[in-house]
Each structure stands twice: as structure tokens, then as C-alpha cells.
């Protein structure tokens, strides 16, 4: 994959390193950015903000019907109850997978993604193949991810074309029976909350 990643880029990595550094220097000299704040942002998104946050939300919803009802009614407020909020998650809507509906999320126009609950998006989510295809042939895309959606289930694609960010609440798996919230959270994957995996 390293080769493929390198190949996708228009310029060698070292040139981007220099370019970003040069722009950072220029903006720092003009007092428009704080390099220390950039250090902290990198650290924050590498260590604190990620799909483990969304997994806590899902596990709580699976364990507490009243919380689940609040989550589906007002995603932003219910997620904030767990101390999770912020950039690219200011207005959250949580959509529930059921026996009748399987939801999947995309941003066809750019790369909108619910950062506070899922972290920064994986490269495939931002890639032209996913963005172009999941709206047109979601069942084929889900099959590539290893998910066969039965014909009797509706596939509902959410294109995040505005400033609302979507998270999927997966169906609670049979193996979740009797588990506590922490153990349930461990069953939840990032892709499950995008809708490209069952859980």
C-alpha cells in the first residue's frame, strides 16, 4: 500500500514537507498561525479524537433505550452528553440501521465526515471511487466491503452535502447479548458507523 499511496500523490513527499513548512513559516511570521497550536492539533487527532468516541455512543445506545431515543431525536445533544463535540460535528444526525433499512454515509462533493465521533476520514472515504460509486451502486460497493444487503432491506445513502454530519447506529449484533458497555464498544468498528460494515 505504501507504493500505491506514494503513487497517488502528484509530488514526491519531501517536496510537500518543504511546501507545508514554508507556508507555516510565512503564516507564523505574519502572526496568523501558532506552530505550537499546530503541534497540539496533530496530537489531538492522533490520540484523542477517533472512532473509539463513536463506539462509546453506539454502546450506550445499545444499552440504554432512553439514551437511544434521545440520540435519534437530537444527535448533537445526546453525543455531547458523553463529552463528545466539536469541529465537523457541530450538527449531528444519527441514523439507525434496522431489519428494514441499511444506511450508508458519503460526501460526494468533498470529504465531509463526523470528526468528533469518527476522527479524520480514511483515504478511501475521500477517494473518487467511493464518492462516485456509493450513491450510484451502493449494493455493489457494500459487497466489495464484504457486506451483502438482502433485497428486502432498503439501502439508504446519506450524501453529506451540507453542514450536517451523519453517523450510522448499527444493529446490535447477537454476540452483544449480556455484554457491558465497554465490551459492546469494542465490537463497534469505524466502518460500521459509516455504514460500510454491519457493526
Amino acid at each position, binding site marked *: 500500500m505504501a507504493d500505491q499511496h506514494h503513487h497517488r500523490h502528484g509530488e514526491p513527499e519531501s517536496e510537500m514537507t518543504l511546501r507545508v*513548512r514554508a507556508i507555516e513559516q510565512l503564516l*507564523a511570521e505574519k502572526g496568523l498561525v501558532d506552530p505550537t497550536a499546530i503541534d497540539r492539533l496533530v496530537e489531538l*487527532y492522533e490520540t*484523542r479524537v477517533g472512532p473509539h468516541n463513536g463506539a462509546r455512543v453506539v454502546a450506550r445506545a445499545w444499552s440504554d433505550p432512553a439514551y437511544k431515543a434521545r440520540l435519534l431525536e437530537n444527535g448533537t445533544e445526546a453525543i455531547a452528553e458523553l463529552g463528545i463535540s466539536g469541529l465537523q460535528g457541530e450538527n449531528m444526525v444519527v441514523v439507525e440501521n434496522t431489519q428494514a433499512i441499511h444506511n450508508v454515509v458519503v460526501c*460526494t462533493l468533498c470529504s465531509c465526515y463526523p470528526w468528533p465521533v469518527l476522527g479524520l476520514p480514511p483515504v478511501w472515504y475521500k477517494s473518487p471511487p467511493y464518492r462516485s*460509486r456509493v450513491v450510484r451502486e451502493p449494493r455493489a460497493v457494500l459487497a466489495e466491503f464484504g457486506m451483502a444487503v438482502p433485497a428486502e432491506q432498503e439501502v439508504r445513502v446519506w450524501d453529506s452535502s451540507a453542514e*450536517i454530519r451523519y453517523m450510522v447506529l448499527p444493529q446490535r449484533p447477537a454476540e452483544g447479548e449480556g455484554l457491558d458497555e465497554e465490551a459492546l464498544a469494542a465490537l463497534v468498528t469505524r466502518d460500521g458507523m459509516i455504514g460500510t460494515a454491519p457493526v
Partner: protein
Amino acid sequence: MDGIHDMGGMHGFGAIAREAAEPVFHADWEGRALGLLLQAAEGMGFVDDHLRSRIERTPPDAYLRLSYYQLWIRALETLMIERGVAGAEEIAERVAATREGGRAPGGSDLSLDDMAAMVAAGASTKRPDAGVPPRFSVGERVRVRNDHPFHHTRAPRYTRGRVGEIVIDHGIFVFPDTNSEQQGEAPQHCYAVRFAARELWGPSAPPQDSLCVDLWDSYLEPA
């Protein structure tokens, strides 16, 4: 703008390449780019609408060749030049003069908890107090206007002229078409509109499937 970025429904991009155990950043510069963008947005006073509109002006061949972080940096340079923060020549000279290790000096003693609190506050573009009435209500059928503006817009091409049903009224939000062009926030209601897959793609789409797209009031007309 009917650019390459508006790629929903296009054919020919092939299989989705996924990476097992993908790192948050693939190189140090990607992390710097993310932090730089968020910091510059605050320092220079731009928002996502401005950034996106500049990304979309990237020529199609370059858009497809560059990674998303590269597109961000390219758009940031465009904004710097447009706003007189630095000239194209100044940027080019600085890039040529920059060598590994020549990091900008740290500017503050900001802690990780401080930053976490700042990020947690967010920067919502919802304008609940704008007092603008909705033109449509949940359950109503609407058609997306057939409009192909040259400027930034968030009505995906594949929805234009198509009929769907309002399923959520998200409330009042800044309107990107005007905001991106410095023409004001023009706050208005934004809705999730549900379309049958067949309405968008024709008879080859499964009859039971659907798509929900978030669309502002100005994009819609009664159906």
C-alpha cells in the same frame, strides 16, 4: 460549479482501494497541513465554504492527481494570494529556500487540554436566531432547481431537476453559494430530501433503495 469534485454517480473510477490499519496521517506533513488549515482558518478568517470553493477550481487533472491534503494546501495558497497575505512569488521563493529542519518557532505554551477545549467548542454555521421561515415542511414533495451556477454550490449535479420528499428540516444554516463568494451569509433552512434511487438513476436502480441529500431552501421549488 460543475467541476470534477461533483462526482456522485460518475462511472470509471474503478475499485475502492482500502488500507488495513491505516494511520491517522501518512506523513508528518499531512498532520502539519491539517493543523495549519485549522489555524489559518482562524487567523486569516476563512471558513469551509471559502476553502471548498477554491479546491473546486483546481483543474480536473490536478484534482484527480493530488491527495486531499495536497488539495487543501493548494487552496490555502490560493486564499493567501487572493487576500494579500503573501504573493505567489513570495511563496515560491520561501519553498525554494526552505530546507528540512527549518521549522517555524513555537509561538505559545498552549496545552493539549486547551486545544481539546477549543476544538470541542466547534464552529457551527447553524443560525437558529436568524428568524427565517422555512419555505417547505416535512412530507412535502420538492424539485431541485435545474441551475448550473459558475460559482460554488452544494446541490450535487445528480439531484438537479429531480423530485424528492423533505424528510428532515435541519434548521437555518449559512448559505454556501453566497458565503463562499463574499456575498453574505443569506441564512435559510436546510433540509434532508429523500429521493428514490430510480428517480435519480432510472430503471437500473433497485426500486427499494433511496438517497437522502441535504439541500438549502434556495435550491428547491414545489413539485
